[in-house]
């Protein structure tokens, strides 16, 4: 049988009617308490988008304060009430905004919104499974996340305000009710929301691991998995092994807050009164437990983006991914190193310098797998027949941001430099570029690329291009100058810099950053309009495989029902990156290997 004949089957007309299903779902079982992984993915995505808007809006508000510290905006008072008395954000509100922005974007958007969406959506579709190992636990995972979201949202409305001690929740601000207004009921709600969130992540992660290991279709060996699946697998492993440690740290925190223990509280005074009647504990202990999760968390955020970028780049370069096994090995190396570098967040805690040098070495080692990945992405693009779809642009943007932000990681990984740069805007710039914006770009790339599979319609390309160019230019304009501010010693988490002689020189620059931040936020609204408009009115997908991609999700009907394939699950005969092989533009994974086919990829 020739490939042409086999390929032809995949280019058939849309079999929309195959998507219809025998049993009838009610609105409640189809859209709300759905056990279909695709619907759960969309629930995660849309909840994540709501949080992204809220978290983004918070950053606009605190950038308003940093850019215009002397100005007064009466409309702010009418929205925020006592939190913006006289039209200026109060210091308490500023810290609450920064804290909630960090918590929400790290956990609710870039963990649940990213992993939750794409692990749910892509794992069964790309490995050839009808659903997850346990669709019920999968549904629970979303509803724990939803409940966590409601609790976190409600903390914004309590009288003393949401938690304001930073997303890392270091004691004593997190452990003593009297430490600050945000340490009262706002912190109680924060901790409940986070506990629910950890449960959600664990339920999701267990399912992803079991599904990838156990539910692959016939012929789908582990080394035939698309790199998206490998990345999501390592992400799930990281989550399952690190979130429980955060949970144990937070349980001790709950005991310190509510039951008079002193795991984290040292001899401490609030308003001149000794806060503890018992023996002292160690706040550093919390930092160890927190960063043991906190560092893997960075890779929980980054790896799914890396996986999707690898897949999207290969498809749109019409070339096999360069160095599949090296890509896989570097993912593995990053996953291992993720657990061994947490103390590089703690160089200024009085850490033993010898221990510090070990962590410096291990941290710098991450540059090796990271560089392997970067070179492999670049060599995948090299001499490719590149299609600049919006998804592809965001994938390339991801690589650009990963390089820019990764290089400053080498600076910060050195204890000697970190002691100077710690808690400065240099750190803010570093982690926003390499983790925040880069992963956001991975998420956008994934949404643009898989939107046709999610909703059977395309996103508007022109709006996508506007979205991409303004966002990438804006991201650099926002965070690039922050490196200089940080080098000049400008500390992060300060409410107002205008009273320091040494930072007055940055007043103009701060205003510039704030203005760009607002423009970039406005462009994200444009993306949202594109997203929701296209769900209902976008151009319809009429072919099964619009990107001419090799992976299995494009062998399902245009609008797949619960169970994904109306008939048998396709069998897999090859790896997913047979692009431009033997004169064929692409050969999907379910096409048998021909007799005259060359061996080499």
């Amino acid at each position: 049988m020739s490939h042409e004949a086999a390929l032809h089957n995949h280019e058939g007309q849309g079999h929309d009617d195959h998507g219809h299903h025998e049993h009838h779902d009610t609105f409640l079982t189809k859209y709300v308490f759905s056990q279909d992984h695709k619907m759960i993915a969309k629930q995660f995505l849309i909840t994540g988008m709501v949080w992204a808007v809220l978290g983004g809006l918070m950053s606009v508000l605190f950038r308003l304060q940093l850019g215009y510290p002397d100005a007064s905006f009466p409309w702010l008072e009418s929205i925020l009430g006592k939190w913006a008395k006289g039209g200026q954000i109060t210091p308490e509100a500023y810290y609450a905004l920064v804290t909630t922005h960090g918590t929400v974007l790290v956990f609710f958007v870039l963990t649940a919104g990213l992993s939750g969406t794409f692990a749910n959506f892509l794992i069964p579709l790309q490995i050839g499974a009808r659903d997850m190992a346990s669709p019920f636990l999968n549904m629970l995972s979303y509803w724990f996340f939803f409940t966590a979201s409601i609790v976190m949202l409600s903390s914004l409305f309590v009288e003393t305000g949401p938690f304001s001690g930073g997303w890392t929740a270091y004691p004593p601000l997190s452990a003593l009710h009297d430490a600050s207004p945000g340490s009262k009921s706002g912190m109680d709600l924060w901790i409940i929301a986070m506990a629910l969130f950890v449960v959600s992540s664990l339920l999701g992660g267990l399912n992803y691991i079991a599904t990838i290991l156990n539910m692959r279709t016939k012929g789908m060996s582990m080394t035939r998995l698309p790199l998206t699946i490998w990345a999501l697998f390592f992400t799930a492993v990281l989550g399952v092994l690190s979130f429980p440690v955060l949970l144990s740290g937070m349980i001790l925190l709950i005991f310190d807050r509510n039951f008079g223990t002193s795991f984290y509280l040292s001899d401490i005074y609030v308003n001149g009164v000794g806060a503890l009647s018992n023996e002292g504990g160690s706040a550093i202990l919390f930092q160890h437990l927190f960063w043991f999760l906190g560092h893997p968390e960075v890779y929980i955020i980054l790896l799914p983006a890396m996986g999707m970028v690898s897949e999207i780049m290969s498809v749109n370069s019409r070339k096999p991914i360069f160095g599949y096994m090296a890509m896989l090995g570097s993912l593995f190396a990053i996953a291992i190193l993720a657990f061994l570098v947490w103390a590089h967040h703690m160089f200024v805690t009085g850490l033993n310098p010898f221990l510090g040098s070990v962590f410096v070495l291990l941290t710098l080692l991450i540059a090796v797998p990271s560089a392997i990945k970067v070179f492999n992405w670049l060599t995948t693009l090299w001499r490719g027949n590149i299609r600049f779809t919006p998804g592809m642009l965001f994938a390339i943007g991801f690589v650009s941001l990963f390089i820019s932000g990764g290089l400053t990681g080498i600076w910060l990984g050195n204890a000697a430099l970190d002691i100077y740069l710690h808690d400065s805007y240099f750190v803010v710039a570093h982690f926003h570029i390499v983790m925040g914006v880069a992963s956001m770009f991975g998420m956008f790339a994934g949404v643009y690329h898989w939107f046709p599979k999610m909703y059977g319609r395309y996103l508007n390309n022109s709006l996508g291009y506007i979205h991409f160019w303004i966002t990438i230019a804006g991201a650099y304009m926002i965070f690039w100058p922050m490196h200089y501010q940080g080098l000049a010693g400008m500390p992060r988490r300060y409410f107002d810099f205008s009273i320091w002689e040494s930072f007055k020189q940055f007043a103009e620059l701060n205003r510039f950053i704030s203005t760009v931040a607002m423009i970039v936020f406005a462009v994200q609204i444009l993306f949202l309009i594109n997203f929701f408009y296209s769900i209902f009115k976008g151009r319809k997908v009429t072919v099964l495989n619009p990107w001419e991609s090799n992976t299995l999700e494009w062998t399902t009907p245009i609008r797949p029902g619960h169970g994904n394939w109306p008939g048998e699950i396709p069998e897999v005969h090859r790896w997913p990156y047979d692009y431009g092989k033997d004169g064929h533009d692409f050969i999907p994974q379910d096409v048998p290997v021909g007799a005259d086919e060359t061996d080499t990829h």
Partner: protein
Amino acid sequence: MATDVKTGAEKNKIHPYKMVLYAGLGSIVMMFAGLTSAYIVKKSQANWLDFELPNVFLISTFVILLSSFTIQMAVKKAKEGLQNQYRGFLSVTAILGVVFMILQLQGFMALQTNNIALTGPRSNSAASFLFVITLLHLFHVLGGVLALIGVSFKSFSAKNNLENTLPVQLLSTYWHFVDILWIYLFVFLHWIG
């Protein structure tokens, strides 16, 4: 039905639910690894109170060891299709689980009577650590006991024909795990603590 999860797994030796369970046990291991590491770090610092572990914790260790044996027997009888003996061993395991939990609570009370405060103003983090770690283990045992009671009730219903032994297999894996976890914690608290 389209959502039958077994379709893709028939060729595999391990049931997907077992894989979910194994990964879940891994996450529980990490939770207690975190807590016991924190214990070691805190112990090396000032203000650490040394005290004797009450003997009742040793008795509870024997009880949970015995229950591991009984649940293994229950699985064996289930596979052999011996309905009555299966019911018996399963119920005994559930009862032993409850006894273990009561003994643990008595351990907490024994510490209190020895004037070692677990929480509150007079507490030392040595005792607080013991309390939190043991309490979290207790919650994991409670989960197992509730599942045991559920499966026991099911085993007495007329419809139960022992064709599907998966629930009891999953349960026994989990139960052995909380047993081994307790032995680790007991050894840790007794000799390292």
